[in-house]
């Protein structure tokens, strides 16, 4: 069985009663294997981020099920789902969403807040991840003292520190210049080469092409899936 199974997912937002219900996703089926790098592409408003947050155990779907490592994510209570996010998922947001008042090391240590490990162990783990993304020397710096690329790498480090089996990235290069974007994508490729499963939402076809597989979505429905390796991209 695949590591991630998205089964007939639908999502309807209701703002002011039933009459104004908006269906943003419908009948989405997707499977992601362990160690796979999958890109999700589609125009703005197509439902990419909604699908990402549904897989990310943050957004209850209106229909269907999401299984991660054979766990029915929305069968869990809300608090258990928080534990699940902590244990299974690493998020990289488009805006990075780093805590401006915490230094790089503390930002990386944030997901370890709930861990029972000692302060020293948490520190060692966070420093190791910073080393992995090339930021060990800047551990004491605040986010605003880092470049855009460094902030992106810091956000990735935060997603990695829990050794989460699945990284979910929402347009991680969306706000970066092309050079910095390339730098970030190299980090993702290196991680994937080490066996990390990655599901990435992107607008950028070049970045999407770096994945094993591209999934296209439009108006809340998947309409095309292409194997990058087979198409020779």
């Amino acid at each position, binding site marked *: 069985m695949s590591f991630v199974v998205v089964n007939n997912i639908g999502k309807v937002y209701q703002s002011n009663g039933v009459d104004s219900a908006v269906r943003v996703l419908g009948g989405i089926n997707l499977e992601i294997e362990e160690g796979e790098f999958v890109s999700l592409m589609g125009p703005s408003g197509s439902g990419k981020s909604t699908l990402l947050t549904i897989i990310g155990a943050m*957004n209850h779907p209106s229909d269907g099920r999401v299984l991660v490592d054979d766990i029915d994510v929305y069968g869990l209570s809300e*608090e258990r789902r928080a534990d699940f996010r902590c244990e299974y998922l690493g998020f990289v947001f488009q805006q990075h*969403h780093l805590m401006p008042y915490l230094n790089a090391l503390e930002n990386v240590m944030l997901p370890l*807040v709930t861990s029972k490990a000692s302060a020293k162990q948490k520190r060692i783990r966070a420093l190791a991840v910073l080393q992995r993304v090339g930021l060990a020397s800047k551990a004491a710096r605040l986010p605003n003292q880092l470049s855009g690329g460094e902030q992106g790498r810091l956000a990735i480090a935060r997603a990695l520190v829990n050794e989460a089996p699945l990284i979910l990235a929402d347009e991680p290069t969306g706000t970066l210049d092309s050079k910095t974007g390339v730098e970030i994508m190299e980090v993702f490729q290196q991680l994937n080469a080490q066996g990390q499963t990655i599901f990435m939402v992107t607008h950028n076809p070049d970045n999407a092409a770096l994945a094993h597989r591209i999934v296209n979505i439009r108006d809340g429905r998947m309409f095309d899936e292409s194997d990058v390796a087979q198409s020779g991209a």
Partner: protein
Amino acid sequence: MRISSIAWANLKRRKSKAAFLIIGISIGIATIVALLTLSRVIKDEVGTQLDQFGANIIVVPQSNSLSLDYGGISVSGVTLDVNQLRTDDARRILEIPYRNRLSVVAPKILGVTEVEGRQVLLAGVDFPSELKLKRWWRLVGQKPQQDQDLLVGYEAAKRLSLIESTADGQSQAVPVMEMAEVTSGGGVHHNNVEQKSFRIVGDRLRIDGQEHRVAGVITSTGGSEDQMIFGSLPHFQSLLGKPGQLSMIEVSALCIGCPVEDIVKQISAQLPNAKVSALQQSVRSRAETMDRLTRFAVAVSAVVLVIGALMIFTTMMGSVVERTKEIGVLRAIGLRKSQIIKELMIEVAAISTIGGLVGWISGMLASWLILPYFSQSGVSLEFDPKIALGAVMAALLIGALSTIYPAIRASRLDPSEAVRHV
């Protein structure tokens, strides 16, 4: 990295907001501490003054016969009673467990005798304790110095032609509490009741063939003492043929914070042959005065607390809105709702504790500065750890109560929506 680390980092980051909250809480707590401290000190002082102002416990012999009336209190006809009070009984009252609560013990012998052809009620008293008890008396003349010295009530003095009215309107009567041990004789008093002034014209009085000196005249009080003659206790006991006997003992107990009934029980146990009763009206009116002071302080404190709570509530609600994205990220990376609530509560607890301590110090300082304007007797402030603890606990309580709703609201933020928040 723990939840508390995030809370501390947040406090350090939002120093001005934290300082604003601390100042707000401090002002609230300082106001409450100052109010409660001042009201307690004033309450104690007023209470002590009220307690010293007249008796609130009367001790009379056990008797069925009532023959004399004094100050609206019926006094037993001692000559007919088997159970009589003795001079020693007054001393025994001072041996009860609550003796430190007794302000004045004033023994008396009462009797009727003929003076210059008129029936007059004589009262043999222990002058130092009597004058301490009757602080509202105003005297023209001197305090009694000798065994044969008398104080005469205004009406009695008038009928016995000891005083005469004057037209100059000068007033030289002195309250007994302000009188020196020995004052110059004479003096003129403007009588408030009759709107007349008088002066002493006769300073000698024969009672039962013995010559006495009229040391002073008590200005009109409107009470039964206007009709009476007061002399020293042992002398009048001998004059009335009742050596060692007492008609009654008036007791003034300091009853702030102690039940007068307990003192009554202890005196009853000490003097089993006496009837001991509390003047309930007096005790109740004192308690009501004290209650009014306390109620005022509590009401103002409650208003201050509500204002403080609203201030914290608005600030924390604003803080939650401001930190929507941050809270969303924390939820997205796996923090539970309870951990979000805990983080906000730690912040408020830290702010409240500092605010409570600063408020307590400021409140005590303010009380110390203000107290001289409120207290006449120069009462000093005492360090009370309960007030310090209470101040911090009150600050923590209003902090926690005002933050519960914003914290729950923060914990309920949809992480997927929150991380999109810009």
